[in-house]
């Protein structure tokens, strides 16, 4: 069974704060993704990566940075958090094109 873990599971910060969300997968997958889920929008892709050191821009990248340090680890950075970034964030991994994506448990972020 594919394994994707995220930390923290819940996070509260203030406007202008600095937040790092972490994701680790033990599936030996090359592809990793960061999504946000908001009511009325479904899941929207923020950034994704093909492998260590690679970064691709998703559909809603503004205000987010990401870094893929190893095959296993993918980080999402909010350097100046805003209330509009309050959301449920999911990380996922997959083996590549046409492959199933495996999702982590999610991180709920509240920006006050």
């Amino acid at each position, binding site marked *: 069974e594919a394994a994707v873990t995220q930390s923290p599971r819940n996070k509260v910060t203030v406007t202008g704060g600095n937040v790092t969300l972490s994701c680790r997968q033990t599936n030996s997958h090359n592809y990793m993704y960061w999504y946000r889920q908001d009511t009325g929008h*479904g*899941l929207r892709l923020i950034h994704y990566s093909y492998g260590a050191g690679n970064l*691709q821009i998703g559909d809603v990248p503004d205000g987010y940075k990401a870094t893929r340090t190893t095959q296993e680890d993918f980080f999402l950075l909010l350097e100046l958090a805003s209330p509009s970034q309050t959301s449920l964030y999911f990380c996922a991994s*997959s083996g590549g*094109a*046409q492959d*199933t*994506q495996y*999702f982590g448990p999610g991180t709920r972020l509240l920006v006050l």
Partner: protein
Amino acid sequence: AQSVDQPDAHVTLSEGASLELRCSYSYSAAPYLFWYVQYPGQSLQFLLKYITGDTVVKGTKGFEAEFRKSNSSFNLKKSPAHWSDSAKYFCALEGQGTGSKLSFGKGAKLTVSP
């Protein structure tokens, strides 16, 4: 550009009835299509996918979906429905050559009453 539409945000039915969740897509080439399910308070789980070949695909938990190129649809079906099927269902599209980038619909919340 690629997009997915799930026109029914909320679907309610009784246990034992047949369920069908609609999904339509817009994409200029042959799409790869997926259905995922999200149970309350949980993450997303894969149900099934269409890549090529047989247009009726079977997935986990007794679900199946039919790809219809003629009307750009990929509807999810199950009969009979069970109360444990109550969840949010997402249809997603991967375009060719997009590096496994998925575009999700907004989801359909299914409530099955016992």
